[in-house]
């Protein structure tokens, strides 16, 4: 068989490690979306004293690179402190796997973002992040870089699908996002759900309103 993947990628693809969900997870994240492509879910258990990741599990709706990266990330992160785990990059995962095709970077980078988001989720819940980052326009844009434009498969920021971002309020913010899609577009609802999901759980956000093109 002639495949563009290393033995190790195929091994993790065939026998993914640490699959499933941790019970009562201390941190959780979902990156990507079914509407537009691959998706990875991560749950972690963290020792409160040592801040060591004691358990980590993943689930994947994705291609071989996505599954293999999800699997290897759990192996690398397990037993590491949160600070160590934050430094794990796509390059770390790719090197550990013996290389990934460059064209598959976007499928495999999701697992890395998922790990960082799960850690952030833990830190936010446990008040470790000294001062939770206020939701600014920059933060909104960064979060929306994880929402795909279903028409192109690239993110909504890079493809200019978001026409304006309005933020009102202080600790109970109302965020208004205008999208360059009409309401009856076949992907309108997917995009709306994803935008909401990426923002509404932030602790200073009260409501997310998605406005479609008239």
């Amino acid at each position: 068989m002639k495949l563009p993947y290393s033995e190790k990628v195929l091994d993790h693809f065939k026998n993914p490690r640490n699959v499933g969900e941790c019970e009562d997870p201390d941190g959780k994240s979902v990156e990507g979306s079914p509407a537009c492509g691959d998706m990875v879910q991560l749950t972690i258990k963290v020792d409160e004293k040592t801040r060591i990741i004691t358990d980590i599990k993943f689930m994947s709706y994705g291609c071989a690179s996505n599954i293999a990266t999800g699997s290897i990330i759990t192996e690398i992160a397990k037993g590491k402190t949160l600070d160590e785990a934050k430094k794990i990059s796509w390059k770390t995962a790719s090197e550990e796997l013996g290389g990934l095709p460059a064209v598959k970077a976007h499928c495999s980078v999701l697992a890395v973002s998922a790990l960082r988001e799960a850690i952030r989720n833990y830190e936010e819940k446990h008040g470790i992040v000294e001062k939770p980052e206020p939701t600014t326009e920059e933060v909104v844009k960064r979060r929306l870089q994880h929402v795909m434009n279903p028409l192109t498969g690239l993110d909504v920021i890079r493809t200019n699908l978001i026409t304006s971002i309005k933020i009102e309020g202080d600790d109970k913010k109302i965020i208004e996002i205008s999208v360059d899609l009409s309401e009856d577009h076949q992907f309108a609802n997917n995009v709306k759900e994803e935008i909401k999901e990426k923002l509404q759980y932030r602790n200073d956000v009260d409501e997310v309103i998605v406005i479609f093109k008239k």
Partner: protein
Amino acid sequence: MKEKIIYLDNSASTRLDERVLEAMKPYYFDTYAVATSEFAYTLGILAREGLDEAREKLATKLGGNTEELIFTSGSTESSNLAIKGVLKAKHKEGNHIITSKIEDFPVLNSAKSLERDGLKVTYLDVDKKGIVDLEHLKEAITKETILISIQHANQEIGTTQDIKAISDISFDKNILFHTDATHTFTRLPLNVSKIPIDLVTISAHTIHGPRGIGSLFIKKDTPIKKELDGGFQEQNIRAGIENIPGAIGFAKAAELVTKEENEKIKNLRDSLIDKILKEVPDVDLNGHRTKRIPQNANITFHSVEGESITLHLDMNGIAVSTGSACFSRSLEASHVILGIGGDHEQAHGSIRFTFGRYNDIKEVDTVVQVISDVVERLRKISPLAKKRSD
């Protein structure tokens, strides 16, 4: 490779039939000259006769006359020539063509490329089964319309179009009609003396013939200009030394397809669909249940991604293709699945199985068993599968 591969990607390309190769051989080793005029040397005259015989056989199969068929390098060239050649000949009469959203790339991208140069193109909607909206077709026709190009059957979901109705509409409005019959030629009835069509694209690679040979049927007196400049071959419509062994092989391949074989292939396909729909939960058949070519099945396995399925199948010696973005070179999801109103999730988990001469029922059973195991395994790790079953 320990075991025989189960090859179910016959719409991409087929295994050559030995009998085709045998028919071609003399034109490589004995009658290897170019096709010359009747006033030249014997070897060239014999080559010419072989070429014209192949042309006659294929033209007859289509219900046309010998001089109405020219050889090309395959479907891509045939469809490019049909669309661009007609436009070149008729651009003074109009600046509008009509095609559908789910055409194969040679037609679709020819249209897009001409559109960038200023041509107006209407891409017709299709319904959820992939059938072109004929009302939309009628409405789309303007005084500027010079060509309608709608496929006979779809490359991915296998849906067949009502080419009789389209032919009637185009005849009525005096507009040229081209159809891409790459996936129907010899597999389904197609006769231009019964259903008038001006241009038909056909190819050998889908019927166990050689690659690199196809034809364009061009009805007598259809205005068309050549695309490749060069010699005066193929009635001065397609320049270049004729691929005579290819043409001989194409004619032989067309001759070898029988009604019985098409019936056998259809039964295998039906058996695969029935078994998968019965044994694998949460799946959808893409395309029309009956208005489809006999060799095609296309099924979406929800909550799992197609490249993961094809990779697992490959590791089990099974070759299929998928409409998933992750599998394609362009990283774009199938425009056909999106065209029939599917979302990326539906394209993501879609698998195309296409049958040919060398498949048998044992293979169908193996494939059903393997795919049902693979899908179950992938669903165990899929967060979506959990969501859908909750």
